[in-house]
Structure formats: C-alpha cells, structure tokens
C-alpha cells in the first residue's frame, strides 16, 4: 500500500514536471516571437530614441506625433533633468538625440566625444515663471517675486540647481532680486523642473519656479497663475539639441533635426511656452 502510494506520488511529480516543462517552453516561444525580445532590445530604424529636458514634456510629444504622421518615424521620449540625462548618455544610454534645457550639457557631451559637433542646434529659449495655485491669495501676477516674503509661503519649489538648468535660473533670479537669503530655508528641490512644478501643483509647496512650458501645458493651464521672471535676472535658457555619437540611426536623426528647424516645429515650441532664438 505504501509502495503503491509512493510510486503514485512519484508519477504525480513527473506529471507536474512535464506540465512545468511544457509551460516553460511555451513561455520561451512566446518571448522569442515577441518583437522586442527577439531582437534583444535592438530597435527598428523607424524609431528614434530621444532624451529630452523635462520642460519639453508637453511640446515634444506633439512635435513627435506630427513628425510620425509625416514620415512614419516614431519618437520614443525619455524626460529628465538635463544634467541627469547627460550623465546617462556618458554612461552609454542608447539615445539617438538629446534635447537639453541649456547649451552647456550638449557642449560637454561634444567635448567628451559623445555627441557630434556639427549637429548642435539651438532650437528654443526657455522662460522661467513663478507659479502659484489658482486659489492662492498671493497676487503673483502683480507683485512678482515679492509674494515669496508672505508668511503663508512655507515652501518654495525649485528644480535642483546641481543638475537642472531651470534650478540654476531660479537661484540666479532669487539672488538677482536680493531675496535669496530671506527665502533660502524655505526652498525645496525637485529632481527636475517637472517635479518642482508637481510640488507646487499638488499644493505641497505654496509657490514654485517652473518653466513657462509647464505653466501653459494642458495639464496645468488654468490651475494656477504665474508671473514671468524678467529675462535679465537669470542667464538665458538657450536650449540645444545634438545627435549623439553612439546613435545607429544618424541619418534618421539628422532628418528629424531638419524638421525641428522648420517653421512648423518652431510654431509648436512657441505654442508651448518657448521663445525662438
């Protein structure tokens, strides 16, 4: 009786193993036929992988959609702080193009041999604004940066000046206005300018220095009021794009770059809160 049952158990186990093995093979086959896996992550030439500064998170998807309709080339976008993206590119991130929020990071990449000098192009100039929620009692539109001295402002969101150009612009503007020392202990740093915008939009910070591109983006428009920080109080946020040296699709990248130089693309940049160089 005991022997029989142990044989039974063994057969059950074998059966289970067979099931497991066939399931395993099925999963492998499935993975092998899935396009992404079969090519080991290699993309088809009708796709460009683009690293882009956080202030482009509204403009670039629309530009990309328009471009895809025209040419069939799809853009895969990754947004982040320009410094952080530069960092990733220098460590071999597989991007074809890099849209920075300044000119320094692209130049840094060119100097390190990670980007092609000839492709560097200034596509837009960013604008810094001081943003407060719509229901805030602060009259930011008329009083500008002085509202930061109001006691109801407990936290002021800015992008991290260590690696985000908008963070550096915000620091410069605060120093230029002489307010920096009086508000320094109330600054909270977003990882990039989008996070700074999100700190302010969620109400956790009562005011935030964000990109005009965020203030007029569909998700945030109408939720707040803003004041454009005078251009002379911070270094110009000239924004540059480069094709990266490791790109396997330089021809397609150059084509897209040519499209960026057209009036059609320029109009979209303007629509989303940038001025043209």
């Amino acid at each position, binding site marked *: 009786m005991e022997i029989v049952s142990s044989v039974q158990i063994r057969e059950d186990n074998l059966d289970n193993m067979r099931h497991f093995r066939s399931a395993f093979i099925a999963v492998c086959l499935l993975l092998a036929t899935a396009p992404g896996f079969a090519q080991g992550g290699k993309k088809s030439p009708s796709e460009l992988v683009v690293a882009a500064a956080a202030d482009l998170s509204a403009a670039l998807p629309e530009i990309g959609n328009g471009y895809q309709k025209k040419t069939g080339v799809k853009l895969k976008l990754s947004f982040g702080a320009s*410094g952080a993206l530069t960092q990733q590119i220098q460590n071999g991130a597989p991007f074809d193009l890099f849209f920075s929020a300044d000119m320094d990071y692209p130049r840094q990449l060119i100097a390190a041999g990670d980007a092609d000098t000839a492709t560097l192009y200034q596509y837009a100039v960013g604008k810094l604004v001081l943003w407060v929620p719509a229901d805030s009692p602060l009259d930011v539109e008329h009083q500008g940066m002085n509202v930061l001295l109001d006691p109801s402002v*407990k936290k002021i969101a800015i992008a991290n000046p260590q690696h985000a150009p908008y963070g550096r612009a915000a620091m410069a503007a605060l120093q230029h206005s002489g307010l920096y020392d009086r508000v320094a202990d109330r600054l909270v740093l977003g990882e990039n300018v989008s996070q700074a915008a999100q*700190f302010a939009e969620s109400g956790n910070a009562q005011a935030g220095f964000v990109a005009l591109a965020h203030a007029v983006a569909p998700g945030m428009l109408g939720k707040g009021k803003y004041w454009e920080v005078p251009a002379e109080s911070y270094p110009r946020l000239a924004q540059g794009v480069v094709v990266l040296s490791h790109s396997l699709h330089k021809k397609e990248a150059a084509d897209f770059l040519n499209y960026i130089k057209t009036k059609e693309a320029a109009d979209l940049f303007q629509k989303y809160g940038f001025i043209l160089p």
Partner: protein
Amino acid sequence: MAIDWQAFWLTLQLAITVSAILLVLGLPIAYWIAFSRWRWKFLVEAVVALPIVLPPTVLGFYVLVALGPHSPLGRCWIALTGHTLAFTFSGLVIGSILYSLPFAVQPFAASFAGVDRKLLAASATLGASPLRTFLRVIAPLSVPGLITGTALSFAHTTGEFGVVLMVGGNIPGVTRTASIDIFDRVQASDYAAANETALLLLAFSFAVLAIVYGMNRKAWVIGPVK
C-alpha cells in the same frame, strides 16, 4: 568633496526613529496576527504585507496627493501640525513606518506563532494574565524574531530612496538622506564623492546586519535555556 555627514547622520536618525516606533507599534499587530482566530485575518495580513510588493512611488504619490493640502485628510494634518507632510522629517518617518511595517511585523508574528502553545496553556493555568504571559513567556522566547524584525526595519529604512525622493524635497538636514545625497552626486558627475558615501553606507549596513545576525545566533542558543 568629503562625505556629507549631515546626510549620513540624518539617515541614522530616521532609521533609529522608525525602527523604535515599529518595535512598539509592531508588537500588538504581530500578537494579533499570531493568535487571532478571526476568519478574515488573512485580509489584515495582506494589508500588512502590501509595502513589500508596492513600489515606493505609490506610497510617495499618496503622501503627496492624498495627504496633500488639496485633500480633506491632508487639511486635517495641516490643521493639527501647521505644515504639510511632504518636505518634513515627520513626513519621512510616517512614510518609512508604512514602508517598513512588514519587515518588523512579519518576523515578530512568526516568532510569536512559533512559541509552544503548551507553555502558554501552562502559564494561563498558573493564573497569569495574557499580558503577563506575553511579557514572561512569549516575548523572552521570541527574542531572535524581535531582533531580526527590528534590524530589518532599521536596515530597510537606511536603504530607503524612492519615497524620500518623491516627497522629501531634498532639504539639507531635514530630508536629504544619504541615499539622496549619493543620487545627487552621481547626477552631478561627482563620482569620487558618491563612491565615498556609497562605500560608507555599504560598510555600515554590512556591519549592522553582521552584528545583529551574530547576536541572533547567540540568542538562539541561549534563548530556550533561560
């Protein structure tokens, strides 16, 4: 650049605070999980285990939005304390308690459940109250589990990153922990400084865990003899 000792010290403070609170808070929860016979107990167990599988971004998102000033719960918190949960040390403590809860409660509950029920019956027969039984029988026999749970919640908080990145706001001395400091330095291409802090954190974490597991081994030997 040298190591940011302020960030390191802040991480220690956070980990000590969180593991101490979890030791106190975790005991009754673990006791209940170990001894309750409620038929829906598994639901509570699932809730306690949630942070193991939830990404920290979920927790960060809730702290920022559901407990932010636009929500009723967030307004209650602001009325009580005068500030939002985000960007404060207490915000990090609350986030970390939620995030490390299973790492304390599960080892506690497992060791409580492992205590021989005959001893509990004997204790009750001798007239001891449940509390007395817990303090004199269950707790002493569960020392290894208590040490493990406290050490894991301490270590887990030391290594926390996602929640802090999402709700901390990177304020020096308040919310800039060692893990955030390392992240910042890597982003700024300051590999030398990142390396120093990373190495320090690695050595520290290893030392804490090694000491705890070493003590734990001894407790295993001594525990039942006591």
